[in-house]
């Protein structure tokens, strides 16, 4: 884990650069100009109360949500939209699909494909998006299933796995695609308390390997331990960000102080 703090400074080597991101649903503005920069190897965690825009921000990065203003650059490529004669134009579906493959995402509800085995869930993207040969895809998928401790369950269907196991397969499915950035959207929120640990330890292991990760979580202790930078969001804006120790121990914003108190961290 490299301890390079995320900052709002413009750096040319930044892996992810978000500038002035605006997102609205009809009249409701959910992101009101968000700036965020991540370097390779950074682990950044978004915290904040529900409705603050954390999940929406995460989903804009892989275009699961459209956004109306601002830019997202991932490895220098403009995500979602580009400019043609000064006009903002949405990329073609194929370009968006290619950009999406640059990020991996794990969801709150796992979203494994129920008609495919654990192994097939992981190989699908490798075969159809990465166009790997079947043998190669299987070797890679087995490697990642082993990494999340589920090689023995490779031929099980999602319905035969526990919530924690399903989430670990979902993480393997995303990671096997070798994304340059992993997005984790409240991956433990739907799990029974005793299953949370196994998923968090997988994520921790990935962080130790230097994986660049952007997380949304309510697990404050985990966020504190795993993150280089904590970003506190409030009402569609970044209210405060910095190293976990600073944020948790010396919050500047009264809202963050209040939020931390309410989470009993």
């Amino acid at each position: 884990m490299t301890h390079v703090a995320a900052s709002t400074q413009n750096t040319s080597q930044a892996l992810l650069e978000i500038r002035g991101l605006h997102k609205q649903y009809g009249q409701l503005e959910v992101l009101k100009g968000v700036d965020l920069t991540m370097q390779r190897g950074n682990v950044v965690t978004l915290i904040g109360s529900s409705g603050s825009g954390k999940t929406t921000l995460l989903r804009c990065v892989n275009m699961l949500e459209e956004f109306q203003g601002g830019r997202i650059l991932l490895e220098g490529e403009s995500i979602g939209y580009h400019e043609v004669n000064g006009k903002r134009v949405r990329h073609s579906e194929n370009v968006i699909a290619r950009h999406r493959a640059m990020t991996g995402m794990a969801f709150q509800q796992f979203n494994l494909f129920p008609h495919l085995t654990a192994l097939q869930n992981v190989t699908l993207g490798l075969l159809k998006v990465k166009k790997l040969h079947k043998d190669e895809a299987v070797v890679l998928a087995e490697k990642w299933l082993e990494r999340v401790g589920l090689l023995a369950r490779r031929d099980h269907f999602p319905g035969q796995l526990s919530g924690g196991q399903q989430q670990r397969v979902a993480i393997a499915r995303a990671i096997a695609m070798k994304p340059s950035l992993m997005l984790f959207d409240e991956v433990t929120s739907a799990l029974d308390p005793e299953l949370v640990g196994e998923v968090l330890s997988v994520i921790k292991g990935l962080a130790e390997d230097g994986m660049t990760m952007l997380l949304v979580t309510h697990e404050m202790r985990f966020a504190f331990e795993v993150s280089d930078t904590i970003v506190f969001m409030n009402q569609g804006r970044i209210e405060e960000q910095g190293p976990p120790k600073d944020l948790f121990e010396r919050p500047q914003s009264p809202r963050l102080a209040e939020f931390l108190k309410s989470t009993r961290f």
Partner: protein
Amino acid sequence: MYESPSWLHELWSAREALWSGFLTSVQCSILAILLGTLIGVVAGLVLTYGRFWARAPFRFYVDLIRGTPVFVLVLACFYMAPALGWQINAFQAGVLGLTLFCGSHVAEIVRGALQALPRGQMEASKAIGLTFYQALGYVLLPQAMRQMLPTWVNSSTEIVKASTLLSVIGVAELLLSTQQIIARTFMTLEFYLFAGFLFFIINYAIELLGRHIEKRVALP
């Protein structure tokens, strides 16, 4: 003294007409089910994912046909096709009517099954970089088809039953063949029961096939 021939004797002498009627019923049903399913899948996909202007004609088709009795549909195809300068025979007109009927029902079955899938399935597909058509082919349709199967089997048996309406426009399917035999033998009850039994056989076979597929593709 005149002795009336037994039913089995009459059945034997009518075997060719019955067999030919049976085959015609099977043939027009299968054609209508296959073509109707094809139209229905396309219509269902457009109704689920299409933009407004693409959806509009399919919505019109589905609502119009579903609101029309099959009998009227079959007659309309039979009388309207020649009026529109399209020379088709009674069998073709009948199959056309059944196909349109089947297509409109399958369209709604497909739409219902696709819309019942959790939104996360499409999102997870997109998140690993699958294109829309890849997501549809590898993730959504395989799941939707499992859901559709029982309802689709039901619609197919409806088509087999509706195929008897082709008798009105002169297609010698099983019912019309049976009526012709009855007109000759006056064995009304016996031959109608026998025809009913044959229709049951066709539909039971479809149901068995459906159950077999359902079992094979069932998820744990």
